[in-house]
């Protein structure tokens, strides 16, 4: 999960040409990638699309551990192999499509700070939803700290050991329960603070 905060960090601190490009252009680029995924039916086209995305990925010198993030959807894509008769063509087709999609978004997120993305989305989505996105993103970072510390505590006090699976499951569930309670407490404090600072119905951000 450190991945999400790491992506976020890269998007701010990175200095590549994609970082400097306006967010609007990158979102248009993302839409082009998506239409490519939808429209392309031949492997050559998809290979080229994926190749271009990979090239961007390495030109921008994004670290390898971010690259592994783009492989995640493959886990689910594998299931679709079972639909077909294990034909390589079909497999490559769906794999490349899924990979192009995930590489595209990771590329976008690793080179564009999230407020800029949400701000652009704000032109199309209702403000309440954009506010919910902002609050969720902020909440992720607040809870991430809780989660990490809880994980450390489990580790330091022997809470997760393969030789005691039932106890470990129990401990993990308690840790999630703790995370939820902390989240609810934090949401109450957040609400108080929003009221004290005059919140009406949206979070204002620059360039809206």
């Amino acid at each position: 999960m450190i991945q999400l905060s790491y992506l976020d960090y890269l998007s701010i601190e990175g200095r590549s040409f994609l970082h400097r490009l306006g967010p609007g252009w990158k979102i248009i680029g993302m839409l082009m990638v998506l239409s490519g995924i939808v429209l392309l039916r031949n492997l050559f086209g998809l290979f080229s699309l994926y190749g271009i995305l990979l090239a961007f990925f390495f030109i921008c010198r994004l670290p390898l551990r971010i690259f592994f993030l783009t492989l995640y959807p493959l886990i689910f894509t594998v299931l679709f192999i079972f639909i077909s008769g294990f034909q390589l063509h079909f497999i490559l087709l769906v794999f490349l499509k899924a990979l192009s999609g995930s590489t595209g978004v990771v590329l976008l997120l690793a080179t564009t700070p999230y407020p800029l993305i949400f701000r652009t989305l704000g032109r199309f989505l209702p403000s309440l939803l954009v506010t919910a996105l902002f609050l969720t993103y902020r909440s992720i970072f607040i809870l991430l700290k809780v989660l990490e510390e809880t994980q450390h505590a489990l580790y330091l006090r022997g809470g997760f050991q393969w030789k005691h699976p039932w106890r470990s499951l129990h401990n993990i569930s308690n840790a999630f329960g703790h995370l939820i309670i902390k989240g609810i407490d934090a949401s109450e404090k957040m609400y108080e603070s929003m009221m004290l600072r005059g919140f009406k119905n949206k979070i204002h951000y620059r360039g809206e």
Partner: protein
Amino acid sequence: MSHIHLPDGVLPVWLWASGFIIAILIGFILFRFTKKEALTKKLPLLGMMAAAMVLGASVEIVPIAYHVNLMVISGILLEPSLIFLATFVVNVILALFGHGGITVIGLNTLTLSIEGIFGYLFFRLFWKILKRLTPVAFIATFLALCLSTFSMIGVVGLGVSHYEELIHKNEGHGIFEFKLLKEKHDPHGEDKGKGEVNFRRFIAIVLSLSFLGWILEGIITTLIVRYLHRLRPDLLRLEIGAS
């Protein structure tokens, strides 16, 4: 693997597009019929629970993609109208870091919110009947996940003709692929209906993998509910459910 985040590029356009349309429609209706002030008041809670779900989705308990998604417990805590919006937010954020597809945000929201909404409904219903927390939480989670998985299979099933098209497209297409295909084909010669969609096999695989997920998620959710019941019984609002 209690549920599946559909990836980009597999489903046909009409399918994911209608997913978006239905999700937006439901969202719009909920938006119309929920009081604005009530919604504003619940926004931070929505944000925190959505954040908890995103985090839950990123902690792998058993390596290889089994993660809790906390959807049922969030449903119980947030109630149906908010869980739908929260699911949407969760899917947008998960899609943004490559966890699920962008084009399928609508469909993923629909199938996943089934977990939350029905988790809530089952939990209330069974509580009225059984009044015992452990079985109620487990059965509610199990059934809700079951329902959501079947709806996901249904969604994938709607695209069958599309997959056929994808598969057949290659026949007589580029030579390179054809050759590779040939080589691959021979050992699997006995495979009946080569180049045909075998949807049954897909269902069998998904259900057998999911079944374990339902049980595991059911156990974890039950343990979480019990933990919450001890520390903050007010959150579960069992008295209201009982009356």
